[in-house]
């Protein structure tokens, strides 16, 4: 456990620059975007006012400037997309950097007097915690933007919205913050499962190289089949499960895949990857 924590902290600190840059970039791009969008909105308001259009007329033409609408602008969405792409890339890079770097660092890691799965879990939770950290910071940024908007836009041209409303209706928000706590666990554990499958695919390739790519493809297909088997069953039989049943089946399949990925990864790391 101690070694796992040390490895986790080590891996996390290795990603420190990338992680903090992503948080910083998100806030900067979204903040700058908010500034530009609001300036552009205000200049339109000024123009219409000069033309003698009433407040009501301006609102009917331009609508309100509010946080919910802002979440649909590219300024807001782009950094989120960037974060997703960066973390997906790093999920692969986190393994290959140890093999393909100047010094084959993986050998030093594999020779540590600890279970090799500690390396696997350290890398896994580095990515997972980075995702949670980025989403959490986005939540705080939403509060900052909510506080900023009335300072830039006068009261008559904006409308007060709760963060819960923005999360429920805003772009991408429902994927980052599932509506209820049980579905938060369901969604994020599904994400963790996908990451585990991805790590297993990488370990297949690292273990068997070209042949490993074929094996990894097969494993990916098998995983998809296992996970979506309740859905395939429903489509095939045209029998619909009750929601609780759907939830249960997908959870069971997720747990099965997690267990299978851990077993296969353990086997590959301890038996097939040699120093």
């Amino acid at each position, binding site marked *: 456990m101690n070694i796992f924590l040390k490895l986790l902290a080590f891996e996390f600190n290795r990603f420190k620059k990338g992680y903090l840059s992503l948080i910083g970039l998100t806030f900067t791009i979204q903040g700058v975007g908010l500034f530009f969008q609001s300036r552009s909105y205000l200049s339109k308001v000024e123009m219409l006012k000069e033309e003698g259009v009433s407040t009501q007329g301006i609102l009917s033409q331009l609508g309100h400037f509010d946080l919910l609408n802002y979440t649909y602008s590219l300024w807001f969405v782009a950094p989120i997309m960037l974060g997703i792409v960066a973390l997906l890339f790093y999920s692969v890079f986190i393994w290959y950097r140890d093999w393909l770097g100047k010094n084959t660092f993986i050998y030093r890691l594999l020779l540590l007097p600890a279970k090799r799965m500690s390396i696997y879990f350290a890398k896994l939770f580095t990515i997972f915690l*980075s995702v949670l*950290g980025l989403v959490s910071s986005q939540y705080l940024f939403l509060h900052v933007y909510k506080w900023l908007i009335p300072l830039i836009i006068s009261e008559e041209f904006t409308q007060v919205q709760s963060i819960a409303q923005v999360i429920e209706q805003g772009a991408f928000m429902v994927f980052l913050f599932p*509506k*209820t706590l049980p579905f938060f666990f369901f969604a994020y554990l599904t994400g963790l499962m996908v990451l585990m499958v991805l790590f297993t695919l990488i370990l297949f390739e690292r273990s068997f190289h070209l042949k490993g790519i074929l094996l990894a493809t097969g494993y990916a297909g098998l995983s998809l089949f296992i996970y979506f088997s309740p859905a395939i069953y429903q489509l095939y039989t*045209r*029998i619909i499960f009750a929601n*609780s049943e759907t939830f249960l089946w997908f959870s069971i399949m997720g747990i099965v895949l997690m267990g299978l990925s851990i077993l296969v990864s353990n086997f590959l790391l301890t038996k097939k990857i040699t120093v």
Partner: protein
Amino acid sequence: MKRYGLLLLTIILFVSAFGWHYFSVEATHNQKPTFSYVTSRGNKEYVEKLKLVGSIYQPDNEYNQTNFIQKGEETLYEEDFPFLYQMDTVFYAHPSFQRLYENYPNFVKRKNYGNFLIETPETIVEASVDWEKQQSTSTTIQVEKFNKESEDIKKYTFNLPLDNPAEYSYLESIEVVENKLILFLTHVGENKWEDGMNTTAVELFVYQIDLETEKIVSAEPFLTQFPATEFPAETNVSALNSINGDEDYKQKENNLFLINHENEGETLTSIANYDSKDNRHTILDIKEEWIDSPTQQIYEGETLYLIEKEEAGFTVRVFNIETNKLETTLSVPLTAALMQNFNGEYVERGMRAAATNDLLYLVSTKSIQNGEDVTIVVVDLYTGQTVYEGTLEPDNLTDEWKPLDAEIQLIDIEE
């Protein structure tokens, strides 16, 4: 310790942000709405639950098109659409199906989603066309009746005779009145013309089956499509809401069905009545324009109210089902501003109506969905005069509590 700094900071950030968010979501979720109104004497009265007859359609809820029909439903508010629904609507069961599933798993479990289910106070009846046994002279229907109390399941197979040869049959709607099962079926056949062209012919039939004697009591054509077209016409049959709802369920003599029949872009709308006392079907003598959108239809006993929304008020046609004649037409003038509250994309999304003791209650539902005050107008059915015009004020009505299925609770505005 320094090496764990960023890790700890991330965990603290995550726990506080998500904790904050879900704590506030839970707190909102537990706030139930209350409605209040001001009586004619100026006192504020609270309504525990606002009940509205029928479903308030949500534009983005594709499961409104589910075949499931329900009665005796007490669920007042939309259930939360869970994450699975947000992610993928295909594998999400409608709340009404979900409720049946939870209450009667022995019967509802493994039910095919394409089949019709109808709930009565004592039973759940399911009917489906057996495609494999379809013949040109008959259609086979499989029926299952589930007794809620004893949990017995009775299975029936009925071969329904066809007047004209048909290729296949669709079940449009089912209803259960006392022991009678009423089936609306569309039969699709082919007409061969002299020039060699094949076109599709459609007939809408209503069958009445006595589930006790297991006999087909009647088989009557309701609509025959002519001229035949290349594509089958679309028919939609829905049971109209009777005002007294389930209390009168067993004694109900008149059972009204709204039939929409679309053919080559034209919609034929008619209202059919099944008289359970005389085992008689009638298509009511109602003019197309009376039931064209935007109208709403409700009925009580022998009276059918056809409510048409105008720009500045409502036109209410009072129709006698027994005599099959229009009794009177009332004009209810209301200001255009007030009428705005009743404007929905479709009339059924914008308002609900109920009538009792010669009073007609018109309630705006659009405003409930927007979280605004609910407009309520009460009209004297003798004079057409508005006797009460006020609002129901919703408190604690949050996004979590948008009413979907509800009934009207008639409020004593006179105290």
